[in-house]
């Protein structure tokens, strides 16, 4: 092994990486929030009795879940240009991440809705709870408790998966690495440091979500 490592290259450019990390978090945060809104509608669509609501929702979810994110990214990126819409790479990245995340969240929300039985609402009403109390204590909190851990995992998966958007030059953490790499050619050192940053973010958010969950739902959970 005759390779000399130059760890000072990534270490001296930490500010660039931290800026990239902030962009990554911003991008995945927005994508998950918007994805959740799509997911709530699609989950209701998938559970609907009406075929014309059920079929498109299922088609959307299955298409997204069975094709790679990179292909979806190219499709949106080149597709928007083809129909004459020019957006910057960062917006395209958020858009594609949202579409992608929406499909995965749909399944999570659907499972959450299905976990509440009709009888529970009736039981709540017959105990003399008001409609608002039933909604809050019987429907909302248990559903949130069910969907919280998988949603937290989904946020982390989206954050890690968002590294792919560097391929279309959307400016985030991996792109920051590619930028530095093209100037210094210290590929290994740079991506090693970036991988550590991703890992730290993933662990930190995993812990944060698990603590928040415990506090909000006052129940001891294991690791998310």
């Amino acid at each position, binding site marked *: 092994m005759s390779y000399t490592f130059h760890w000072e290259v990534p270490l001296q450019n930490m500010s660039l990486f931290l800026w990239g990390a902030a962009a990554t978090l911003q991008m995945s945060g927005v994508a998950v929030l918007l994805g959740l809104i799509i997911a709530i509608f699609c989950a209701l669509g998938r559970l609907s009795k009406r075929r014309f609501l059920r079929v498109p929702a299922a088609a959307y979810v299955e298409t997204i879940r069975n094709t790679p994110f990179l*292909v979806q990214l*190219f499709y949106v990126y*080149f597709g928007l240009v083809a129909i004459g819409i020019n957006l910057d790479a960062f917006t395209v990245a958020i858009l594609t991440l949202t579409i992608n995340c929406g499909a995965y969240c749909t399944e999570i929300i659907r499972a959450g809705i299905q976990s509440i039985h009709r009888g529970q609402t009736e039981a709540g009403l017959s105990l003399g709870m008001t409609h608002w109390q039933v909604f809050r204590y019987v429907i909302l909190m248990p559903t949130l408790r069910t969907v919280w851990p998988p949603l937290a995992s989904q946020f982390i998966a989206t954050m890690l998966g968002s590294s792919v958007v560097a391929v279309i030059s959307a400016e985030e953490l991996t792109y920051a690495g590619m930028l530095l790499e093209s100037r210094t050619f210290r590929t290994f050192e740079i*991506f090693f440091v970036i991988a550590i940053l991703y*890992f730290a973010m*993933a662990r930190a958010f995993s812990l944060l979500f698990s603590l928040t969950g415990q506090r909000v739902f006052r129940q001891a959970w294991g690791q998310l």
Partner: protein
Amino acid sequence: MPEIFIAFSYKDVLFLLQGAILTIALCAMAFSCGLFVALLIGLMRAARKIIVLRWVAGTYVEIFRGTPLMMQIFIAYFGLSILGLQLPRFVAVSVPLILFTGAFMGEIVRAGIEAIPRGQREAGWSLGMTYGQLMRYVVAPTAVRIMIPPTVGFLVQLVKGTSLAYVVGYIELTRAGYIVSQSTYATMLVFTLVGAIYFGINYPLSLASQRLEARLKRHA
């Protein structure tokens, strides 16, 4: 249309199919070799007495689950060349995918082993079985059945994951699509085709995974 572009023809479809074959080959390689890593990791994770083994395997899994697959591919691909190994591209791209499979399948193996009631293992021990016999005759028959649905589900993830070999320039399906789209300018047509091929590979697997899981639930 400018002269430099070549019209999209059946040759491009063949090129895409060639890419699809490499995608499947990459998957087969990653899955078959990754299974050995996974078995080792799963057994280490499920080891009750030896904490060091559990800790080492746990760290391995955490690292691969906590970093983007794209970073794993970059680091392994360039790391191998730093080590001075001149590997064929197919092998160099396979290595990170094998390690990735090892981590994710390792968790499936562990879940399978831990789903076996403790009493069964204890019964095996008290009959004087060795560790190997215990795993082979007591744990494996039930654990493997539990492992099948998530394994098929993981295959979908792996097929999608191979698309990231794109970033180191390996010509699998996504890269093939990109090349064709740049030379023919039939971008939407090409990526629709690429997406359809991925869907064609993955959708049957997704369905099978769902069915197998439903069946397992019925029998449990």
